[in-house]
């Protein structure tokens, strides 16, 4: 069990995303620890831009307004590498030059000291998702589902303050998708992390079991 270190709600305060003077979406919401807020919408609706805004890597082509708060702390202007946003993309994006365990160790906060301690923790994290003994494997030799689990553990060991899920199940086949979904949501809940999920799959939204905000239907400019 990962320790529940710091669980604060995540607040999107009057967040608007504009592209070339056109408002793509406007969201206001507070996501409680352990809750998953789902943003549903077709591609081009600005939902990925919203995640990029929350993660701190929004393309300068977009205009964003509003604030992002963790608890009472305003992190809107905090650079991406100090926000502690755990991000899962469509692809697992394991670093191909590192081993499976290397990917996990890379993600651990530097406050965890000692080579052996870090390795032991990484092996434990792998064991939690049924990947015990995978530490020295080449990530490229893993199956899609195994990669997704490594990516999840990589995010969780970095002690994030919130999770950003960018359609992380869309590339998995149906059976695996169901399994991985449950794993991600249950672990996010267990860790008490507020999470934002963007997707265009309503099954994702149902499984998340939280509020759903639909954006950018048949929008007229």
């Amino acid at each position: 069990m990962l320790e529940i270190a710091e669980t604060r709600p995540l607040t999107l305060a009057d967040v608007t995303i504009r592209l070339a003077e056109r408002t793509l979406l406007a969201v206001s919401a507070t996501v409680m620890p352990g809750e998953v807020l789902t943003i549903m919408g077709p591609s081009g609706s600005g939902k990925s831009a919203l995640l990029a805004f929350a993660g701190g890597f929004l393309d300068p082509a977009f205009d964003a307004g509003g604030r992002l708060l963790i608890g009472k702390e305003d992190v809107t202007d905090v650079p991406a590498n100090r926000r502690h946003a755990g991000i899962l993309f469509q692809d697992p994006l394991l670093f191909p030059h590192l081993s499976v365990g290397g990917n996990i160790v890379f993600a651990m906060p530097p406050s965890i000291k000692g080579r052996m301690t870090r390795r032991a923790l990484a092996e434990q994290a792998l064991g939690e998702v049924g990947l015990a003994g995978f530490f020295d494997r080449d990530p490229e030799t893993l199956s899609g589902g195994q990669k997704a689990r490594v990516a999840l553990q990589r995010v969780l060991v970095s002690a994030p303050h919130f999770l950003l899920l960018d359609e992380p199940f869309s590339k998995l086949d149906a059976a695996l998708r169901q399994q991985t979904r449950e794993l991600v949501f249950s672990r996010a809940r267990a860790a008490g992390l507020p999470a934002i999920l963007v997707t265009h799959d309503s099954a994702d939204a149902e499984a998340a079991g939280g509020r759903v905000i639909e954006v950018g239907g048949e929008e007229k400019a």
Partner: protein
Amino acid sequence: MGRPISKEHEIAARRLNANTLLALILGLPILAGIAGIILPAFGYMPALGGVRFTLRHFAELAGQPHILRSSLTGLAVGLATTCGAVAIVGTFLAGFAGTPIFSRVQHLVSPLLAVPHAAAAFALAFLVAPSGFLLRLVSPELTGFLRPPQWLLPNDPLALSMVAGLITKEVPFLFLIALAALPQLPLRQSRQLTAALGYGRLSGFLVSLWPALYRQIRLAVFAVLVYSVSVVDVAIILGPQLPATLPMRIAQWTADHELRARFLASAAALLQLGVVLAAVLIWLLIERLARLALAWLTYSGRRLRNDAVPRFISAFAITACAALIFLGIAVLGAWSVAGLWPFPRALPAELTLQTWLRTLSPLWPALLVTMALALLSAALALLCAILLLHRNGAADRGGDRPHHRLLYLPLLLPEISFVFGLQILIVSAGLKPAFWSVLAVHFLFVLPYVLLSLAAPWRELDPRFERVAAGLGKSQRQILLSVRLPLLSRACLTAFAVGFSVSISLYLPTLLIGAGRLTTIATEAVALSSGGDRRVIGVYALVQASLPFLAFLIASLAPQLLFRNRRAMRT
């Protein structure tokens, strides 16, 4: 509202910085170099006792025998080379882009880029000379020659062999630049559309895609033009000798022991700048005429379906470029181990390592200097390229245009002019020509190629890798060192090999800045060409040609070793 705008400003400022930095690195030495010839050309050079402005040196230049002819030959060579190379590459792309033949030719032509100009010129010379391999193949059966004929080849007065030699090297260059631009064009759709409208493959491509493609490769075309108008090493090996082209005569004057010849050389270097300007103006005119012709073709609606002959010719020409150089290098190799090899035998009568053994001791120090220059300049350029690209950062989306133009700066001015100017400045400043100044000028020529090579993979790396790392709390520098650079290790090694090859091939900058005191394989090989000992030339040219191949071999094998257990890193 306020935040994104200030962020954009900050990004714009950073982009400006990286580009400004590049402009300074490349631009300052070039401006200094140009200034370095203008003053002495008008007689001002206190270090050599010239303190009054005068037009005397231009009068002296005008009085040199056949100076007009020398200038015009260089001009004509450059224009002919550029026309030929653009026509071959353009027709071949139009005829074959997207076909299986295309990718086969691509693999054949790509390695040619690594062959230094001088080695390629020697390869051609060894083939076409009266006692060369081609004539030996057909003698005496077809020609009846029992001894080599008295033809003035390869240094023919019409400079045909020089143009041929330049075209064989410029075709691969333009081809690969065009190849990089091709994915940005809607090739398949345009092909299908124009074919459905009944156009031939050539005319369909010309009408629909060529203008956009040409815009992408235009700077490279100008670089080819400027290079071939001003080239010295190829001119020495293949060009006409009496009179020689202007750049070659300038090179001779700069090497004159009589230091006052530098005034004359400066005036001539300024004239060369004028010749290059004239070539550029003529090329702009040719571009305009070509545009008119294309517009006429477009509006006339002609389909030109029967284009098999020009397509076949272009495929033949581009294959011939590769075949000539590869065959020529093989002949170079044969000469380096040949014992007795009388005309008209196609193969040496006996093989010996005598030439290699005898050449090794003078070759060794030149090889060390060459390797030191190439390794250091490529390493410095790679480091500099990484820093510049990193500064531009993720904000570089679409912002690489001005950047790319800057890169061509040193390639759009005749090196004989500004490098000679730099030499004068170094001498005037009382500095001794030394390894470090030669290294600096190598760096100047190596950097653009390294940047060109690294920029595309740098841009194409999936940005989400860095976002994941940033989300994990890694700093910019940690992300660069532990994510981006390892992922781009193959691209970095390739860029390094490109820089290494450029340095290996640099002749004139090494000669001028080293003031003849720093011997590299390139300067030694070209210097040997007048002596005409084919066996020794064979050794030097073969060494020069194989060094870049070695570098590329290492660049492609190293990831296999470094990432033995990482499958995704080895492809």
